[in-house]
């Protein structure tokens, strides 16, 4: 089965709004959690990440929340902008081999 799952295939929000992207995982050995952003015909780029020893990390308009007991992490985006329109991929990893397991992505559309 898929170890990392994103509950929403797509999401639409009005410009300026707050949005939350969710990711659930199965493997409680994961100790690294990340969100990647991907524009059409471009490669994924790291947006924000967190290790399992913290439950929140903020970087500007982007915040990742980690709920280890619930095997869940989320990405909060405030003051959304049209340039936030992209595919957002969550990923989790563990161990020393840097192996990342990705979710299937959420297509986000921010409407002006």
């Amino acid at each position, binding site marked *: 089965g898929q170890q990392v799952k994103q509950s929403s295939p797509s999401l639409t929000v009005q410009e300026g709004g707050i949005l939350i992207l969710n990711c659930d995982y199965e493997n409680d050995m994961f100790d690294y959690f*990340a969100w990647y952003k991907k524009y059409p015909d*471009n*490669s994924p780029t790291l947006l924000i990440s967190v290790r399992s020893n913290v439950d929140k990390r903020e970087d500007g308009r982007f915040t990742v929340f980690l709920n280890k007991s619930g095997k869940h992490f989320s990405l909060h985006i405030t003051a959304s902008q049209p340039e936030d329109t992209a*595919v957002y991929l969550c990923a989790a990893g563990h161990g*020393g081999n*840097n192996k*990342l397991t*990705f979710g*299937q*992505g959420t297509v986000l559309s921010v409407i002006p």
Partner: protein
Amino acid sequence: ETAVFQTPNYHVTQVGNEVSFNCKQTLGHDTMYWYKQDSKKLLKIMFSYNNKQLIVNETVPRRFSPQSSDKAHLNLRIKSVEPEDSAVYLCASSAGLGVYEQYFGPGTRLTVL
């Protein structure tokens, strides 16, 4: 320019042919990866190398074989391609073991007719 480079961008071939994809990173990283992005857009790790050593080998068909001449290069060869091999193949690199942040190349789109 420092980045992850892949060639070719696209490749169309017939069932049974052999294909090779190249990946080079100029970031000075030790670790490189091959991912497959299928028709459902799911990104799955296939292989990873650290300093030319294979460290991750997921369950992929034996017709796939990675090749690393040095830590800046990781190529992927597919012998006798099948229709289900049609996908986008993404190469990535990271600074080293224990450093999860990965930088991706633009991908190679393979179409098997």
